[in-house]
């Protein structure tokens, strides 16, 4: 993108309401997560049982949980934890899925068949099932949830890469590149990937939101992040039996998940509209 196109992109973007809202929400999460690395109002591993189940106050902004831990601090660390798991999982999924999809589109024939049938097979295992299998063998943990969510994402990225790449391979400039003597790898890297980049970016944003949900789900079931590290899903599951007298303990991490996922989805939607001019004209 040259300079004028970049400024045009920003101009278009800032007029797009859901993109702006999504961007703000996502940045808030990113900022909170990063901040938790340097500062939280209270250390999250500090149990202060005499002050358990306190409601919001000047000292504890969102109150304390059943161990007297500061809920606000836990939500901050939880944001970082969710993000970290999701980034690595999506990185893992895209890192394997995209090259596989590109390979399938470039080679066609039996290579494509093999890759895509393998992907269908992997797609049949939801992240939860993979996580249960992994934790049965290696015990529950953060790494397992990264792997489980990552494995689930491989076929997602392989499919979308192959699909988009196939339509690009039909274009004339690919033929031109071939005639010019460029190899398959160079064509894929120099011509295919840049042309499907926008599709991938949108998909990454959406998968990122799903990754956050999946991480919360796995921690809720006790398969993901382990104590004493707080995570949103674990906060939800611990709050369950206290719903009757301390509903805020379930509502707060619930809201954190809702706003994060909402933010990422709006961002993804907005990006798709902006990056895909054909769609924006229809609007």
């Amino acid at each position, binding site marked *: 993108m040259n300079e004028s196109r970049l400024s045009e992109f920003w101009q278009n973007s800032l007029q797009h309401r859901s993109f702006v809202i999504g961007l703000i929400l996502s940045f808030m999460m990113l900022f909170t997560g990063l901040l938790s690395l340097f500062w939280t109002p209270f250390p999250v591993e500090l149990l202060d049982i005499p002050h*358990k189940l306190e409601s919001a106050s000047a000292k504890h902004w969102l109150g304390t949980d059943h*161990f007297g831990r500061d809920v606000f601090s836990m939500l901050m660390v939880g944001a970082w934890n969710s993000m970290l798991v999701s980034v690595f999982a999506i990185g893992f999924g895209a890192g394997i899925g995209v090259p596989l999809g590109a390979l399938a589109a470039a080679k066609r024939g039996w290579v494509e068949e093999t890759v895509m049938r393998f992907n269908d097979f992997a797609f049949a295992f939801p992240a939860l099932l993979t996580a249960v299998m992994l934790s049965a063998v290696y015990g529950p943990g953060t790494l397992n949830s990264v792997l489980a969510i990552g494995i689930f994402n491989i076929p997602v990225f392989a499919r979308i890469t192959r699909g988009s790449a196939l339509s690009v391979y039909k274009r004339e400039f690919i033929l031109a590149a071939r005639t010019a003597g460029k190899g398959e790898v160079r064509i894929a890297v120099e011509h295919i990937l840049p042309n499907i980049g926008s599709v991938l970016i949108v998909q990454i944003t959406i998968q990122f939101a799903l990754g956050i949900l999946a991480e919360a789900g796995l921690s809720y079931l006790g398969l993901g992040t382990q104590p*004493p590290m707080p995570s949103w899903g674990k906060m939800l599951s611990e709050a369950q*039996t206290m719903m009757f*007298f301390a509903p805020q303990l379930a509502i707060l991490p619930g809201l954190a998940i809702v706003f994060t996922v909402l933010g990422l989805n709006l961002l993804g939607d907005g990006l798709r509209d902006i990056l895909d001019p054909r769609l924006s004209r229809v609007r």
Partner: protein
Amino acid sequence: MKHIIQKYAKVLLISGSALIFAGSAFAGKTHLTMGMVLEPPHLDPTAGAAAAIDEVVYANVFEGLTRINQNAEVLPALAESWKISADGLTYTFKLRNGVKFHDGSAFDSADVVFSLDRARSEKSTNAQKALFAAIKGVSAQGANTVVVTLKTPTGNFLFNMGWGDAVMVDSSSAASNKSKPVGTGPFTFKRWVKGDRIELGQNANYWGEKPALKSATFKIIPDPAAAVASLMAGDVDAFANFPAPEMAAQFQSDSRFTVKVGSTEGETILSTNNLQKPFDDLRVRQAIAHALNSQEIIDGAMFGFGTPIGTHFAPHHAAYVDLTGTYPHDTEKAKQLLADAGYPNGFKATIKLPPPSYARRGGEIVASQLAKVGIKLEIIPVEWAQWLDQVFKNKDFDLTIVSHTEPMDIGIYTRPKYYFQYRNAGFNAVIADLNVTADPKKRYALMGAAQAILAKDAVNGYLFQLAKLGIWNKNVMGLWENSPVQANDLTGVSWKN
């Protein structure tokens, strides 16, 4: 108009009869669904230590010579009466007539001899062999009389014979009791859906008074939130040991339920692998004892239900000695002891936590308390079957938290191969002395001495005595409020009209 009146009359009639029907269905209710947190590994009480086994089958499916009621009194069961010789060495049991096992075979003196010899034999897999240690010989005199001779007078022999581990089994079905228990009790085993429930049915040929209940289901619900929901929705009628103490107040204020806080024999301890480095060093165990704050664990994990203990003994027992002050909570002292032991910066270890909330939540609190003195614990949650296998059987652990719910189980510390692997000849001598002492006063003194040794040696971290938090439908009558033995005795349970 007439048409409308007719229509209303019809509606009234239908709803009225529906009400009557509902009422009568309720009055005649003869089924109880009992929730439990842990699933038994199998159903043979004579071959396993897990309390969950007895909690299903004791007094319901299996019976012993004697039985123990909820006040810890010894009552006759399959032995209708007994005579004790003047020297206290010979017990002559007169057996009940006409008792049959669920498979139809008759119960007689040969079964008693078989059951007791099987339990105390070399190859026995009984988890409580100490109960039978005093027995010298068992012999039948005719079909209905059994004579048991003891090596030494044993004060609580009749109580011992009332344990779930001492129930009577039939020689033809003993081997298959683990999956298909056959006893003499008022309930028969119907089926076991693994991971979900165990169903009991009525024993039509029961020798005694038939219980009001005709059938029962033990539903396995490991998740506290699901336990709350199942009670609220009425899917489960009762929880003898409710896993979510934070909800007690809520249930108390709900007129549909009865909430009873009673005592159990459950010493909840931070079990320590005494052979594992660095826990083999007394100073390290003392440091842990100083670092622990029992009251905080009771408040945080049990929402106040529980009593601090300083040794492996139930506080409601007459021989209990309060040793909670042996190693009072003192982080500075704990750090000093660690430094003396060669760990000035603490060390890393693991803690394996079984599913009950006292363990999972208690473990988080213990980890944070030990972190303050430099001991960094990695928390490893394990399922119950894994815990029994890895920790209890194979002793592959540093620390764990579990509640020992057997009554008067201080004797487990004499077993060198028991999972926490404590070895102390002095302690063994005290227990050996206790086993041959009949005089109550001397027994209490010896029990006191034994308690003091364990407290001093800080064998395990002594956290608290588990309270029995029972919550059930207020129309359910006759459930135990205290647990002197591990049991859910359903024989006296009924639905109020």
